[in-house]
């Protein structure tokens, strides 16, 4: 699996370079290490995150695609499903065996057919539609549930602004 995982990731990287996908871009941290990726995710249009350029890392296990990568935002981002340390907490990125919350459906869990692209699509759709049922950031979830156009909106707007400042400096 080892060699296979690196080949598979190389293939995906080449494909993404050749046919880039709208909404995010991805590259390697270090050209010699195919398991460490960096990505920039754009906030989806018509959402509070619109206009933001959020930086993140993707770390793949050596037995990818049997196990999922971990994703971490290193841009500040206020979202129910992103922990305060940046860890992205969506069910498709959970390890195959575990079901932390006990109610994840099989189709929402990690599958080996997921690629960087499908993962990023999930992440972008997470930005568009937070899930406050299993929050990684409880405060953000509470705000989002109770008053999405109040404090939540303000905090997100600040993250967006900061991500733009940092993007164009």
């Amino acid at each position, binding site marked *: 699996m080892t060699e296979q995982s690196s*080949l598979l990731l190389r293939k995906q990287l080449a494909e993404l370079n050749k046919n880039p996908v709208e909404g995010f*871009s991805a590259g390697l941290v270090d050209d010699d290490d195919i398991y460490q990726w*960096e990505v920039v995710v754009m906030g989806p*249009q*018509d959402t509070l995150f619109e206009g933001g350029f959020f930086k993140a890392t993707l770390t793949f296990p050596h037995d990818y*695609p049997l196990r999922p990568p971990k994703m971490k935002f290193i*841009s500040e981002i206020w979202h129910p499903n992103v922990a305060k340390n940046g860890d992205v907490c969506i069910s498709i990125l959970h390890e195959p*065996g575990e079901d932390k919350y006990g109610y994840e459906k099989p*189709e929402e869990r990690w599958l080996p057919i997921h690629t960087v692209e499908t993962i990023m699509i999930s992440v972008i*759709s997470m930005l568009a539609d937070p899930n406050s049922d299993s929050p990684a950031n409880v405060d953000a979830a509470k705000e989002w549930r109770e008053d999405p156009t109040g404090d939540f909106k303000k905090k997100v707007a600040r993250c967006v602004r900061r991500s733009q400042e940092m993007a164009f400096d």
Partner: protein
Amino acid sequence: MARHVEPDLPPSLACLKNVDTLLRCPICFDFLSISMMTKCSHNFCSLCIRKFLSYKLQCPVCNMQMTEQDLRNNRLLDDLVANFQAARQELSKAHFESPPISPKTPASAVKCKTPRERGQKPSSSIMSQFFQKKSRTTPNKETHEDAQPCNASDPYLSSGKAQHLVIVKEEPIDVEDTSTLSLKPVKEEHTASQSFSGSFQAAHSLSPSKDMKPVIKVECPVCSVSVAQHFINKHLDTCLSSGEKKESLRSSFSKKRHPMAKLVYNLLSVQELKRRLKECHLSVQGSRDQLIRRHQDFVHIYNAQCDSLNPKSVEEIAKEVEANEKIRNQLQGKTKPVMVFSKNQSEKEIEEMHSNYRKQHSSDFSRLIAQVRGRLQATKQAPVKQEVKEQKEDARESCSSDQFSEANFQSPLAIRVEGVEADAGQVAGGIELSSSPTFSDVSISSSISDIFGPESSSNVDDSERTAGQKRPSGSRDGDAALSPVMGKRRRKT
């Protein structure tokens, strides 16, 4: 799991891209190697699917519950892969010798055949997809709304997604495997394997089972004969040295080797583990965990090879296992975490680490940001007018063609982030979907729009610009890019 990366198809052979895609394993994205079909008609490399099933007992494409016992060979695909690879090479050569004409002929010949054959046998569904997707590589962009009208009466359309669920006549399963298996009911090892791969979870939780009593007889991995455990090494020696002659004799009856049992390693002593490793010609050096991993790897490859008409020898497999282990160890030593976090860091500390990381990698990120912005701008300039026409064409097209792959890939992508998407996934998982060997560009692009469609909080917006944009390459990633991920998302009205 071929280990090489093939060169891309020349542009004039882009029409073959879909066949190429369809003949690939959805797990490793290489051409199917010893393809195995699930009950739900999905195909994978034997090794890929067997490895995955040791994590989770479900089909990776449609989530249907399954075990290794449900797998059946799909030799037709193996032959198709071999022939396609050969043809591809020929065509590429021909292409370079006389670029304008020659490569087109075979492609269009294939294309013409397709519609007539569609729906008649499993192989034809592959070709029909090829055809259907071939047309998609013309500058039409399909979205699920386009396909919607055709599905209005579809009872499965609970979530409003476009799913062309095509019920494919199930081919009688090749009975060869099961019959040979049932001819040998005596083998304790085999029994164990059945019950345990049927509930791997249970196996891991150390569930007591009578199957796990010490095995008295074991199956020789070379000739499949049942041998008393303490004689197995001796037997193996003779068996291996008498090699080829025996092999050819046997092969006239049944060349089939039998899969090795999945062991419950927790129950094995180190001594026992080592004995088993020796049986497999594997090294007995290392920690208990290493021994287990080594044996597991061997079993996976060995069992995958059992599905082959020309299985590799035990020694070859052992060599492969040890080579893999070496690479793995090298990698393990090399990898250093990008950021190390401890449990109880304050938000300030975390922000500081993030900030350091951003600074260290600022040039990388600037490049990535420039890329993603460039794409956005390109999108905004995409022609808008063209789209109306394309939508019409798409609708027609999707009505007339079987969208196998669309339905297939639906469920895995129907990721519920907020609870909207759950139904479709379940539906897709629960019914006979298709005989598509793999998913493809079409399926992905449509499922992206599926994801974004219902989730979007925006209102109806017909001026959406992204969906009509066309990317020249028919590759799956490329087409997926067409989905209105960042554009105004298309809404159902």
